[in-house]
């Protein structure tokens, strides 16, 4: 039962955080709100016995990526006047809900056809570092290597893009 409560609590936090992201005007507020979502998601991962993912979500996502974003937002020193006006924001949101509704409905309906499995937390190796690591370096070795190259390319690309001087 505890897991159910935990799930609903975390889910509520995640949704509220996401709402905050799309509602707050200043990106800094949005980013803070988004962090809430990310941490809640980490909790949900833990509920799903994904121990490694839980850790990485906290360390890499909520930690590294979000601090990078926050750092950049602060680095750019965004003022209220710099922010783009979003005069039709609510129109878009309303229209968006109408448009997105069927998609959400379909996907949720599909998910409801799945077998009703109670989520209990495994305490064996499922989702642990060792198990996932073995999988990663045996069956998923090639994709893993490709992703590493992707990261390398992204690194170089970011340096090239952001490090350009003499423009303007």
């Amino acid at each position: 039962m505890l897991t159910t409560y935990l799930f609903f609590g975390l889910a509520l936090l995640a949704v509220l955080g996401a709402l905050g992201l799309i509602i707050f005007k200043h990106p800094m507020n949005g980013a803070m709100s988004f962090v809430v979502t990310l941490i809640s998601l980490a909790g949900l991962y833990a509920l799903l016995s994904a121990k490694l993912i839980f850790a990485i979500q906290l360390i890499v996502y909520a930690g590294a990526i979000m601090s990078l974003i926050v750092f950049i937002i602060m680095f750019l020193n965004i003022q209220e006047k710099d922010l783009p006006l979003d005069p039709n924001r609510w129109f878009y949101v309303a229209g968006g809900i109408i448009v997105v509704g069927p998609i959400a409905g379909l996907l949720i309906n599909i998910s409801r056809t799945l077998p009703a499995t109670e989520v209990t937390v495994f305490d064996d190796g499922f989702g642990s570092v060792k198990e996932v690591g073995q999988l990663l370096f045996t069956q998923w070795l090639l994709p893993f290597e490709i992703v590493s190259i992707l990261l390398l390319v992204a690194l170089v690309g970011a340096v090239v893009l952001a490090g350009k001087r003499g423009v303007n």
Partner: protein
Amino acid sequence: MTHTVTYLGFIPLLPLAGALVLGLMYLSTCQGKQISERIYGILGCVGPVLSFLMAAKVFFALMSLPAQERFLTHKAFTWFAVGDLNVSMGFLADPLSSLMLLFVTFVGSLIHIYSIGYMAGDKNFGKFFAYLNLFLGSMLILVLGDGPVVMFVGWEGVGLCSYLLISFYSDDPENVVAGNKAFIVNRIGDLGFVLGMAFLFWGIGADGFDYLSLKANAHHLTAPIGLTVCLLLFVGATGKSAQIPLYVWLPDAMAGPTPVSALIHAATMVTAGVYMVARFSFIYAHVPVAGEVVAWIGILTALLAAIFAMFQSDIKKILAYSTVSQLGYMFAGVGVAAYSAGIFHVFTHAFFKALLFLGAGSVILALHHQQNIWKMGGLQSKLPITYWTMLIGGLALAGCPPFAGFISKDEILYSALATGHVGIWAIGVLVAGMTAYYTFRMIFVVFHGSPRDQEAYDHAHESPKVMTIPLLILAAGSLFAGSANIPAIFGGHQRVSHWLAPSLVEHHPHGGLGLEILAIGASILAFVIGISIAYRKFTVKVDEPDYQGLYNFCYHKFYVDELYHWVIVAPYQFAGKAISRVLEPYVTDAPVQASGWLYRMCGLAFKVVQVGYVRIYAVYMVIGLSILSLLVSRSLNF
């Protein structure tokens, strides 16, 4: 029954080889140093003369054979064979073609010799002889061809040469237009010829497409196809032989040098149509209706052309219309199934009309290319040989009794009368009178009376021997050619008719002595009346008449040329312009252009969607997804 002789192929080949050699010589030297006229002249005359000698050999070879075996053939090679169609490049000398062969080579050789004098000094002397040789070669193929397709080769070949020679003085657009006209009008006839051949082939051609096989199978031809074939072939004949409605090119063809007019447009080529009808006598004999059509068109052409001839001022035009008129007689002859009479008239006509044209050429040359008879006069003393020979030619043309023209023309008129074509005979007699009138109108105006252009008269002089000798020979021919076919009533043996009999399918009518006397009497009467009116009117001094009223109408040939121009040529040109300026860009091409336009419009329509904001594209994507989701939901019954 047939005999094979290889030398037959050489008869057309010799002039053709001459044409090739002369043509190459001309082409290789025309830019630089010219070859002397003497060499061209000799080379040009070698081919025709040799051909004439071989034609004589063929003639005597045939003579030595029994009447029913007078068929010499030579099959050079298979020309083309497709399915049942088997056409060989073959030659056939039978009594009909040998007669044609003989006079074509004879007159041809004489005119080649005459041309050496006439064309002297022309810068395109070599080209002229090349064309002339090419013409003679084509004409010989036409005559000797052993089937319709080979005949067609010669048929179109002579048409080409006619075109080339009419537009020989090509600097003047008028000459070229005359040449074009001749070629195009001939082509209209050729269309008939080709279609006629095609029908003939599908009718009876499967077992061999040469005259002898066709003749053997002629009885298989069904009546409708037979009629179609005859009429279509006759369309071809009207083109080549200048009959109604395609006669218009011949008078214009006088733009060419005079020897050309004499050879091509009087003596040989234009009679090809008559020869063709006689050649196909085995079909025409089965289809009397076609014969009627031929005869009536022929005699009406004779009448119409005679009317035109009476009012012309150009000496060559008078002779040209007279040729058309005489051709009409010939068609009347072959139309009433008197094939030998028609062919005999072809034979005699070749002599006297060539003579008249060459004589006219002599006059024209003497007066420095003056062709208007109203600028001539009294030339009798200046050009005695020309005068006397032309007089003989004129008498023969007009049908003066002992001369060649009288005998052959009378034969036709008698045949028409004896086969019951009284109308044709009556018109024929009328035309005979008109012929006498216009012939002597010309001779009297040109040679008698006093000179109208004193200066030209003073400079006139008789032509050189190389020109007058052919005149004399042809004059002798005009005098005596008739003797070959003297009718029985004068104690003759009708040797030509008998000679031609194996080649033709004809039944000699027996009208009796009374009809024969009637025919002869009427002809002589017509001649006398015609010549006396001309004598009364033109031996006294007359000047160029006023071109007004009816005279003007006749002088302008009933405005038929203008009519053709406005009814056929102008609409055709208009159609060309209409198609290329209106129909092509705005109608035919319209669907293509419209499809392009449609794409452009679609592009413009979709351009609106491309706002440039990435998130709007995301919206499109999401909307698409959304619709898809709805559809999937529906089909999954959620």
